[in-house]
C-alpha cells in the first residue's frame, strides 16, 4: 500500500497494468483511518468499520450495480492459468473442503486476498480474476471457518485448522515458511485472522477441549515466537488463580483468543476479548469468576503483559465466548472527552470501558429477551443466575449457544455516535446430562433444544448509555449472522438473515436498499478501485462485488 498510489487517477492507471506486482503493506499504513483500501482485518485498528468513502450515499445507494461475482475454486489445479501452490503437513489423504467464506478479506493495491479453511486466493479487485491459489494439506482440526489473512510488506499470513501460521509471498502465493502455533494433539484449531502491529504478528487459536487459551506474538519476517500470553492462570501465584477452585481447573480453563481485537497506538495496547471457560456447561467443576475467560482485556504489544481487564461474563456456563471484536471510540462521557472501548457481547450485554484503565462506564443489556442473569455488580460485570445453568429437568435460557451476537463484526459511526449490532433472541432448554460432580469436558455434559426465536432485531446503540436509539425488528425471523459496515455518508450495510444484503440509513433505521444474494456469511467491506467505490460481501462460497457508477 503506497500512499502516492491512493491519490491520483494517473497512478491508478499505471497500477492497473500490473496489479499483482505493486501490492505491499507498510505496517505504518495500518495506522491510517479506513478509506481507499482494506489492509487489516477491520480495515483499520479501531474496529469501527467506518469507511471515509463517500461515493455511495443515501441518495444513490439504490443504484449500486453488481460488478462481478466469483464462486471460489477449491480444486487443486496442476495445469492451466492458475496452478495451485500446495503446502501443508498432512499426508494428502483428504480432498480440500468446499469454500466457507466467514472472514474479512484484504484489498491492497487492486488485489483482494481471500481465505477459507486451508485455502488462500488472490483476486483482481476489478473483475474477480483469480491471480493465484494456495492450498494447505491439513492434518485435521475443526474446519469451522477462517477469519482472514494479514499482510506485512509483501508477506501474507494465515492460520490453518491444524494450527500452523503460514507465510506466503503476496505476489505469487509461494510459501515463505510455516510454524506450528498450537498442538493439534491437544485439539486446538485455529481460525483467527492474524493482526500486524509494527513488526509483530499477533496470533490466536481455538479449542473446545479444556486446553488453555493464549495470544502469541511472532516475528513476521522469520516466524520466531516473541511472546506467549496465557489467558488463564498456569502457575501458582498467577493473577486470577483465586477465581478458580484449584490450579488444575485454571490450567484447563479455556479462554480462547479466536477473533481479532483492536489496537491503540497511544498506549501500544492490543485490546481483545476471550472465549468461554471450560468445561463449558458444567460450572460445578469451576466455581468462581474464572478469570480471564469471557473478558475484555488489554495486552501490551511490546511485552505480552496484561495492562487491564474487564470481565464481561463471570463464570459463563453457556459457551458464550466474549471474543467478539471490540471498537475503539474517542467519545465524551458526562461532558469529558474519554478514550473508550465498547463491545457487544454474545451474552446480550453491551459494555463501554475506559481503554486506558479498564474502568467500567456502561453495562447495559441489549438482548431484550436475555434471561440468564441477576443484574449487574458494582464493578460492571453481570451476575449469572445459577438457576439458568444446565440442570437435569432443563433450564429455559435466552440467548441460545450462538448468543445475541457472535464473532461477526459490529460497526460504529463516530458522526452519529452509534454502535451497530445484531440482536438475536433465541431460546433453548438446556439439560444437564452429565451430573458428575467432577464436571464434564469441553462442550459435553449437556443436551440443548432450541425451542424458538422471538423478535430478532438490528440495533443502533448509544455508546454512552447502551440504549437503543433505533431498533429494527426483522419480520419473519431473520437476524442471526452477518457483519456490519458503516460509512461517512451515514449508511449501514449488513445482512437480514432472510437472504438479503441491506443498507440502512444509519441515523434512523430506514431501509434504503437490498439485494437478495443469500445470507451474508461475513461482513460487508468497501474500497476504491480506479476512482470508484466497491462493496464486497460473501455468501458461503461466493463473493459479490457491487460498484457505484
Amino acid at each position, binding site marked *: 500500500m503506497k500512499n502516492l498510489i491512493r491519490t491520483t487517477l494517473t497512478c491508478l492507471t499505471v497500477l492497473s497494468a500490473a496489479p499483482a506486482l505493486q501490492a505491499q503493506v507498510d505496517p505504518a499504513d495500518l495506522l491510517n483511518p479506513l478509506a481507499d483500501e482494506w489492509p487489516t482485518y477491520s480495515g483499520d485498528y479501531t474496529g469501527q468499520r467506518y469507511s471515509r468513502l463517500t461515493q455511495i450515499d443515501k441518495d444513490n445507494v439504490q443504484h449500486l450495480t453488481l460488478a462481478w461475482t466469483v464462486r471460489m475454486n477449491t480444486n487443486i489445479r496442476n495445469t492451466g492459468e492458475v496452478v495451485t501452490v500446495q503446502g501443508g503437513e498432512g499426508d494428502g489423504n483428504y480432498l480440500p473442503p468446499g469454500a466457507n467464506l466467514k472472514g474479512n478479506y484484504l484489498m491492497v493495491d487492486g488485489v483482494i486476498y481471500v481465505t477459507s479453511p486451508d485455502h488462500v486466493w488472490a483476486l483482481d479487485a476489478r473483475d474477480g480474476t483469480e491471480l493465484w491459489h494456495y492450498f494447505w494439506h491439513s492434518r*485435521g482440526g475443526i474446519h469451522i471457518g477462517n477469519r482472514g489473512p494479514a499482510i506485512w510488506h509483501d508477506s501474507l499470513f494465515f492460520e490453518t485448522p491444524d494450527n500452523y501460521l503460514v507465510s506466503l509471498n503476496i505476489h505469487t502465493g509461494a510459501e515463505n515458511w510455516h510454524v506450528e502455533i498450537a498442538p493439534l494433539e491437544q485439539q486446538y484449531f485455529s481460525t483467527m485472522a492474524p493482526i500486524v502491529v509494527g513488526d509483530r504478528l499477533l496470533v490466536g487459536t481455538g479449542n473446545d477441549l*479444556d486446553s488453555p487459551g493464549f495470544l502469541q506474538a511472532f516475528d513476521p519476517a522469520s516466524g520466531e515466537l516473541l511472546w506467549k500470553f496465557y489467558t488463564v492462570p498456569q502457575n501458582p501465584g498467577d493473577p486470577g488463580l483465586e477465581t478458580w477452585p484449584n490450579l488444575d481447573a485454571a490450567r484447563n480453563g479455556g479462554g480462547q483468543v479466536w477473533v481479532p481485537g483492536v489496537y491503540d497506538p497511544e498506549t501500544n495496547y492490543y485490546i481483545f476479548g476471550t472465549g468461554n471457560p471450560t468445561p463449558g456447561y458444567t460450572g460445578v467443576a469451576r466455581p468462581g469468576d474464572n478469570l480471564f475467560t469471557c473478558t475484555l482485556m488489554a495486552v501490551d504489544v511490546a511485552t505480552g503483559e496484561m495492562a487491564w481487564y474487564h470481565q464481561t461474563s463471570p463464570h459463563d456456563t453457556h459457551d458464550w465466548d466474549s471474543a467478539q471484536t471490540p471498537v475503539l471510540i474517542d467519545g465524551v462521557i458526562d461532558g469529558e472527552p474519554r478514550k473508550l472501548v465498547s463491545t457487544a457481547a454474545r451474552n446480550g450485554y453491551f459494555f463501554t470501558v475506559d481503554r486506558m484503565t479498564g474502568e467500567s462506564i456502561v453495562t447495559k443489556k441489549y438482548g431484550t429477551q436475555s434471561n440468564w442473569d441477576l443484574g449487574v455488580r458494582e464493578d460492571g460485570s453481570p451476575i449469572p443466575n445459577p438457576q439458568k445453568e444446565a440442570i437435569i429437568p432443563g433450564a429455559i435460557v435466552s440467548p441460545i449457544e450462538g448468543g445475541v451476537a457472535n464473532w461477526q463484526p459490529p460497526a460504529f459511526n463516530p458522526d452519529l455516535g452509534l454502535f451497530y449490532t445484531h440482536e438475536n433472541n433465541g431460546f433453548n432448554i438446556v439439560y444437564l446430562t452429565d451430573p458428575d460432580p467432577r464436571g464434564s469436558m469441553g462442550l459435553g455434559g449437556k443436551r440443548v433444544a432450541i425451542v424458538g426465536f422471538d423478535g430478532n432485531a438490528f440495533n443502533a446503540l448509544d455508546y454512552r448509555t447502551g440504549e437503543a436509539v433505533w431498533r429494527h425488528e426483522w419480520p419473519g425471523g431473520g437476524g442471526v449472522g452477518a457483519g456490519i459496515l458503516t460509512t461517512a455518508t451515514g449508511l449501514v450495510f449488513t445482512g437480514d438473515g432472510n437472504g438479503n444484503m441491506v443498507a440502512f440509513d444509519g441515523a434512523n433505521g430506514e431501509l434504503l436498499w437490498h439485494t437478495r444474494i443469500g445470507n451474508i456469511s461475513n461482513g460487508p467491506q468497501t474500497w476504491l478501485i480506479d476512482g470508484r467505490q466497491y462493496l464486497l460481501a460473501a455468501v458461503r462460497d461466493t463473493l459479490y462485488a457491487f460498484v457505484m457508477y
Partner: protein
Amino acid sequence: MFAKLPSPLLISIFLLLTSCREQEQSAVVAGPAASPVTKTTPQVAQAQASPEAMPFAIFPAQTRELAAAEVLDRGATVYESLCRACHGQDLRGGDQGGPNLLRSQVVLNDQHGELIGEVIQNGRRTPGMPEMPPLQVSAEDRVAVAEYIHSVWANQSGQGGPPSGEEVELDIVVGDAGAGEAWFNAQCTGCHAANGDLQGIASRIPDPENLQNSWVAGRRWGAPDPNADPSRRQVRATVTLNNGDTVFGVLNRRDDFIISLTTDAGHYASFTLHENTTPAVTDIVIDDPLQRHRDLLSELTNDIMHDVTAYLVTLK
C-alpha cells in the same frame, strides 16, 4: 531474507530452524513453554483407503490406530490396579485427587507411551498439583497402559464430551403436576384440551424431555406423528392491496421487502413491499397459530415449565 525460497527442502530446513528457535524462546514466554513440537505424521486409519472430503472435525486422538486387543486388555488391568484410585475408573480424575487424564497435555501429546511412560516411571511434581509418585511398572506395561488410555480417548464423543460409558438414567420430571394443571387451565385451554387434542399426548410422546421440548416450542420432538394435521400449524396471511383486492393464503415467506403466499386454490402469489408498486400492499394480517408459544418463551420460568411437564406426562 526468506521471501523467495520456494524449494521444499529449504522450507523444511527453515521450519526446523524456526522450531528450534521456538524452543529457545521459552525463557521469555509468559507461562509454560509450548509443548514439544511433534512432527510425526498423524495416523489416519479411517481414511487410508481412498481420498475423501475432510470431515468437520478430526483430531489425532480420535483417529489413531488402536493397539492389539491383548495389549489393551493388559493395559486395562494395569490401569485398574495402579492408576484407577487416583485417576478414576473413567480416567476423569479420582477421589485421591489425580487429574483428569482425558484432557491431560501429557496424554494428548503422547504417541505410544513415550510421554505417559516417562511420568509413570519417574513420577511428576508440579507446583500447585497433587504429587504423583514413581511407579514400579515394566516398560511393556507402561506402553500397554498408555495404549489403553488412548483407546478410551478413541471412544470420545464430539467436542470434548466425556467418553461413552454406562447410560445414566436422569429423571427430568420434577415439577408439581397440580400446579402445572392449574397453569395449563389458565393459559393453554384457549387452543388445547387435555381431553381433546392432547388426550394421550404422553403416550404419543413418551419421552418426557421430548414432551417438554414439544409443548414449549409448539412443534414435535422425537418420532413424527403419523396422524398430525399439518394445517393446524400453518401460518396464514391476508394481504390487502390499494386496488381493493385481498389475497389470503398460507404464508411462504416474509421479510422487509416481500411477502409470498400459497392460496387455497394452490396458486403462488408474492407482493413487493417497501416500494411504490402498483398495486401496492396497504395491509398485512398474519395469523400464526404458534404466536402464543413464542410469547410464552419469555414468560416461562423453570418452575412453571417443570410443573406443566409434570402435568402433561400424566396425560397417557
